[in-house]
């Protein structure tokens, strides 16, 4: 039963070029709400500020202005409040080849969040939970002892999803979770995410630049362009009836099997 609310979020970066410094507004007055049990897709081109929003939501960076509220209260930036926040808001990274430490085995990646957020668990409990988590993401529990380099891309991304689920969060942020995977296994990973979202009643922010999967897997769509949210609404509404010029461009760019090249034969 978690909800994450963002209001008036702004992030500026200072670009230094010799003595002159200019400001780049990566995120400009963004606001939305992530509710439990709902999936919100954040769509936009590269450099539009999607990943910056993910980093701001995960408190890897500080917003220049605006506020983030968890269950109606402003989020804590340090201490016990931050630890609670870390437990409730988790992330699946884009690149499964970079998000697992090559020096540690799968069990380490899953055991650390468990130990950090549930210090009362005994060693046997942690082992049991690791096995359970691996089963949840449809991996063989015997994989716990493997190192990341022994796994395929899809298996790694499943481990990364299991790691994000380990502290039993309420909000999951998935930053292009399938863009680095083989096309043939993308659907499997997305379906897994959708199933887990239903079972755990998660609020999911699905960041992508793929309109088709955004429409299929999410309830609402936010379209981002140059740091601003230019359009938002229910998924079908945004795709079928785009208001903003950029959304129209995006929708037109997706291949349509109904449309033929050249004039249609009579």
């Amino acid at each position, binding site marked *: 039963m978690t909800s994450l609310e963002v209001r008036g979020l702004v992030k500026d970066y200072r670009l230094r070029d010799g003595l002159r410094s200019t400001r780049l507004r990566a995120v400009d007055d963004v606001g939305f709400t992530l509710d439990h049990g709902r999936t919100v897709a954040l769509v936009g081109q590269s450099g539009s500020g999607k990943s910056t929003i993910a980093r701001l939501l*995960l408190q*890897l960076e500080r917003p220049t202005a605006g506020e983030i509220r968890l269950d109606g209260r402003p989020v804590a930036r340090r201490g016990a409040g*931050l*630890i609670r926040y*870390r*437990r409730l808001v*988790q*992330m699946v*990274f*884009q*690149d499964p080849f*970079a*998000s*697992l*430490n*090559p*020096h*540690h085995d799968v069990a380490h990646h899953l055991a*650390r*969040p468990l130990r*950090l*957020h549930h210090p009362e668990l005994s060693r046997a409990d942690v082992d049991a939970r690791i096995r359970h988590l691996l089963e949840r993401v449809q991996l063989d529990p015997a994989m716990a002892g493997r190192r990341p380099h022994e796994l395929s891309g899809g298996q790694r991304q499943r481990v*990364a999803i299991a*790691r994000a689920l*380990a*502290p039993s969060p309420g909000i999951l942020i998935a930053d292009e979770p399938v863009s680095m995977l083989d096309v043939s296994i993308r659907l499997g990973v997305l379906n897994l995410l959708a199933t887990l979202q239903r079972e755990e009643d998660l609020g999911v922010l699905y960041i992508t630049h793929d309109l088709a999967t955004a429409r299929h897997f999410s309830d609402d769509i936010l379209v981002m362009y140059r740091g601003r949210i230019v359009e938002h609404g229910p998924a079908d509404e945004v795709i079928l009836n785009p208001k903003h010029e950029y959304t129209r461009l995006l929708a037109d760019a997706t291949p349509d099997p109904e449309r033929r090249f050249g004039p249609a034969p009579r």
Partner: protein
Amino acid sequence: MTGKLTAGLVIAVPIALFGLLGPLVVQDPSRVDDIGLTAPAAGHLLGTTQTGQDVLAQLAYATRGSLIVGAVVGVLTLLLSGFFGIVGAYAGGWLDEAFSLFINVMLVIPGLPVVIVISAYLPDRSLLLVSLVLAITGWAGSARVLRGSTLSLRNRDYVLASRVAGEKRWRIILVEILPNLVPLLASQVVFAVIFAILGEAGLSYLGLGASESFTWGTMLYYAQNGLALRLGAWWWFVPPGLLLALFGAALALINFSIDEIIDPKLRNQTRAARRGWRMSREQLRRAREVTL
């Protein structure tokens, strides 16, 4: 196990064992005898010095002395460069600026002149003091290398992921980042050991090394003072010089093989490896036949 690593270990391990175990079996290296300068013979396997001291005994103690200098400087360099290079780069902000400035200042201080000044200022020098001086002037280079790799590692996704999981800073540095720096640390330490042993030998040869102790450098210093070269007493100056050169070469070989482990691309950069890419004479002949 590459050829370089094998060759390096085959040379370095016996020398290290000689330095560790030699002093236990040889006679007192300072014992003066009235036989004077004598060539190698049954009683003294490597001959004696001008004052009748056994060269083999001196060599064993000198090896131990040089290895102690190398080990102390290696450990100190590891600690100093690790602390200033890794911690500063991970923390970022003003701490990184301060540490980076400090590293740069230490880096541009010309090493050998400072060592000479410090050594000349302190008349009574122990082996440990000389090692300390060498470590303080030599750690900055490796700190810069470590800082560079830490800057690249701290923004890897798996480090961010452990921050998102809520790991503490010191645990991220020690458990997530440090294991990925181990090969780099090893090669930096090996380099520091070479630098220390050669630097100590240079200082001792100038008469600025540790007093009242044996190292390869002090042996060369006394050999030069005793006119060993002009008297043709090769058994006095060749053994320490040879061991110095061999040990330095062995450590350099070990360092190269560690570098190849860090960056496998380097393995293909040797001439021998490139020659393997060319067509053999047989293949060339056949290719010519086909084209004609």
